């Protein structure tokens, strides 16, 4: 499974080489970057259809605690393939419908994809930090607006740099306490550390993840950034950046914190995971309510992302098998559904030149497919039955009801938030569908069709295909997520801890002997 390295090495190599074709975007640079992502997508699908048991890939030829290793299983591959798909859709959209961008746009999308793959695969805490920083740097640069105020993106830079510094401080404290950087190794030593070391490092490292997940007190940058950034970047931010942050947070939570149970409770009442659960619940409900009040289409989608990540954080902090499965399902559903929603929002914005959703009135009359895409995306995010979000929310309810009063409160909040989110999203869909302005102020009658031809359908249909597959036939995903959960919890033959330790043996790791 050394082929998994290709998901990191190939986009990086392409990113280094593509600027040699010229600084200005040309036919060659565009097709080179699309081709790279396309062949990675093909590789991902091929690896998923030829499943092998979960494996550890050793980098640099040194065994895990000394070198860096990757853990590759079906869930990680699915997630990385999803990132590649989202990146491909975003790049395709930008080439077809976006403004003119220099070649560094394509380059940064490739770098972001590599960072997503690295953050999902890696089993080393510092390496995870490096990949999160790569993702942040490229995401900040991508969302710098071409026109208009860059204040949102400056705040994005500020929040992520400060949280990066905090996270590094946490890693320093943790390293000097535990003397290792491998996640599995850290998990084994975590319980023997002094309580202050555990508290400081746990809080500081989680802070880094929370900012990148847009959890409530740290989300301030997100709406303004989403509003000013090109729509394709909104797709990347909500599909790739939050997804990789959420998965890394879960990895840290599951391998090192052991579900938060090993942290000493504060004054006996309030445990660490309960605090995270509270933050997640706050984010879920306030994000959904903010969607109701929001007039701007892209900011609406930003709040939808924030709300969805709140639910993911709640599921992560519950930590039982069903909740973890819910978190993984929600990450997928969110990326896919939000991809479609941003696709429509981007087209509507580029056609009407306004991002207030009220101005999109009647676009659906000219091109009904826009409305269909919007409703499909909304159904995925909301979780209508037989859509991916449904399986996530269903299994969240199952997991939460196991956890007593906290869980029941969470379910109640989820219902309220889902209602608010549905109202907000369906209202926009209705506006899209409505006839243009009998009383309204439709400035210009929409032209014949938003767009047509292959270029229009290809990106959306790829996302829809995955949505339908995941909604109608979730058993493949459920199996993968369940085995991943038990592997990370150390309860299966292919447990992460066991095969990471065994990776030293050459027959397991598939290392060739020195010639």
């Amino acid at each position, binding site marked *: 499974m*050394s082929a998994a*390295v290709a998901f990191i*090495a190939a986009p*990086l*190599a392409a*990113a*280094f*080489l593509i*600027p*040699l074709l010229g*600084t200005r975007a040309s036919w060659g640079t565009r097709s080179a970057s699309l081709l790279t992502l396309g062949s990675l997508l093909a590789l991902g699908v091929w690896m998923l259809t030829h499943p092998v048991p979960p494996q550890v*890939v*050793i*980098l*640099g*030829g*040194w065994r895990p*605690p*000394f*070198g*860096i290793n990757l853990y590759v299983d079906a869930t990680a591959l699915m997630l990385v393939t999803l990132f590649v798909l989202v990146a491909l859709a975003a790049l395709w959209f930008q080439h077809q419908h976006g403004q003119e*961008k*220099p070649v*560094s*746009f394509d*380059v*940064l999308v490739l*770098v972001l994809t*590599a*960072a997503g793959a690295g953050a999902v695969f890696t089993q080393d805490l*510092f*390496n995870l930090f*490096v990949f999160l*920083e*790569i993702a942040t*740097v*490229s995401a*900040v*640069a*991508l969302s*710098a607006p*071409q026109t208009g105020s860059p204040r949102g993106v400056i705040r994005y830079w500020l929040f992520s740099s400060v949280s990066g510094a905090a996270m590094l401080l946490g890693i320093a*404290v943790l390293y*000097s*306490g*535990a*003397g*290792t*950087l491998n996640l599995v190794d850290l998990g084994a030593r975590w319980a023997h550390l*002094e309580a*202050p*070391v555990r*508290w*400081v490092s746990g809080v500081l490292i989680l802070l880094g993840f929370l900012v990148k997940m847009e959890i409530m007190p740290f989300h301030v940058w997100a709406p303004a950034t989403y509003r000013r950034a090109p729509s394709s970047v909104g797709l990347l931010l909500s599909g790739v950046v939050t997804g990789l942050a959420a998965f890394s947070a879960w990895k840290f939570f599951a391998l090192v914190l052991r579900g938060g149970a090993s942290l000493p409770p504060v004054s006996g009442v309030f445990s660490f995971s309960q605090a995270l659960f509270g933050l997640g619940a706050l984010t879920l409900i306030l994000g959904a309510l903010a969607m109701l009040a929001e007039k701007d289409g892209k900011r609406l989608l930003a709040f939808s992302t924030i709300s969805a990540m709140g639910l993911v954080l709640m599921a992560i902090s519950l930590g039982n098998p069903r909740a973890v499965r819910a978190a993984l399902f929600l990450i997928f559903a969110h990326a896919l559904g939000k991809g479609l929603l941003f696709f429509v929002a981007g087209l509507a914005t580029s056609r009407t030149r306004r991002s207030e959703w009220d101005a999109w009135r009647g676009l659906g009359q000219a091109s009904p497919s826009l409305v269909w895409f919007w409703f499909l995306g909304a159904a995925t995010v909301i979780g209508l039955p037989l859509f991916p979000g449904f399986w996530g929310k269903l299994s969240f309810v199952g997991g939460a009801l196991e956890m007593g009063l906290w869980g029941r409160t969470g379910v109640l909040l989820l219902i309220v938030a889902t209602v608010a989110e549905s109202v907000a999203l369906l209202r926009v869909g209705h506006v899209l569908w409505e006839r243009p302005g009998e009383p309204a102020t439709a400035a210009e009658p929409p032209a014949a069709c938003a767009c047509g031809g292959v270029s229009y359908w290809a990106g959306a249909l790829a996302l829809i295909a995955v949505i339908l597959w995941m909604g109608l036939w979730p058993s493949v995903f459920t199996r993968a997520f369940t085995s991943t959960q038990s592997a990370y919890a150390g309860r299966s033959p292919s447990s992460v801890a066991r095969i990471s330790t065994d990776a030293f043996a*050459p027959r397991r790791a598939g*290392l*060739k*002997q*020195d*010639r």
Partner: protein
Amino acid sequence: MTRLLPALVSLAVVVLLGALLLTGPTRDGLFRGSSGLGDTFSRRDARGPAPDRVGPGSRGLENASANTVTAIVLDYRGFDTLGEVTVLFAAVAGAGLALFGRRRRGQAPPRRRASLILTTAAPFVVLFLFVVGLAVALHGHLTPGGGFPGGALLAAGLVLLMSSTGHEPSARRLHLLEGLAGFSFVTVGVAGLVWKGSFLAHFTGGGALGDFWSAPVTILLYLIIALKVSSELTGAVRTLALVEDPTDKEAP
């Protein structure tokens, strides 16, 4: 009052962190200055026969570069370094992307001539910077330093050349150097995958400890990094220097 609250909060954070980390047994545990990982790295048996790098029963860790920090940066944790190089690359490309399409100075910017002192001294200083930069980069496996400081020195020379002669290095050449260096890093990684079965594994054996040619792949990687860092830093200075000074125009 508006200044007091932030000060108090920051002070509270510092006091809290200090109280948690710098008292009693926690402090002794944190700052004992050794760890299982670090001690094992320090005890590399670098003077043994040609290293058998992979597989069980290898005698611990062998890397022939005398500088243990370099061995960690480029060998044991070489994957981090690939990421580090990528961060810098993404940041410079991102600065270019952020400033794309913004108004720039015309083809012939109104530029003051460099002063006599600068133009006279520049050749000597530039030569010195280049020689020292290359030496630092090439001796990274023996002495403190390596590709990053070496590349920064080379970039300082290039920037000095830029400001003394007024001649800007062409973006295309900088991109060429940067891209080829980055691609070579990945290629070295793939070569490790092909010959040693592991991405970024060093594919040659080591020599005698302390010799110049003791760690050939380390030298190669640090040379690549030095070229990449120097072209990237020069590119960053060039990108930021070419945009219009916002304080020149009146506020709208």
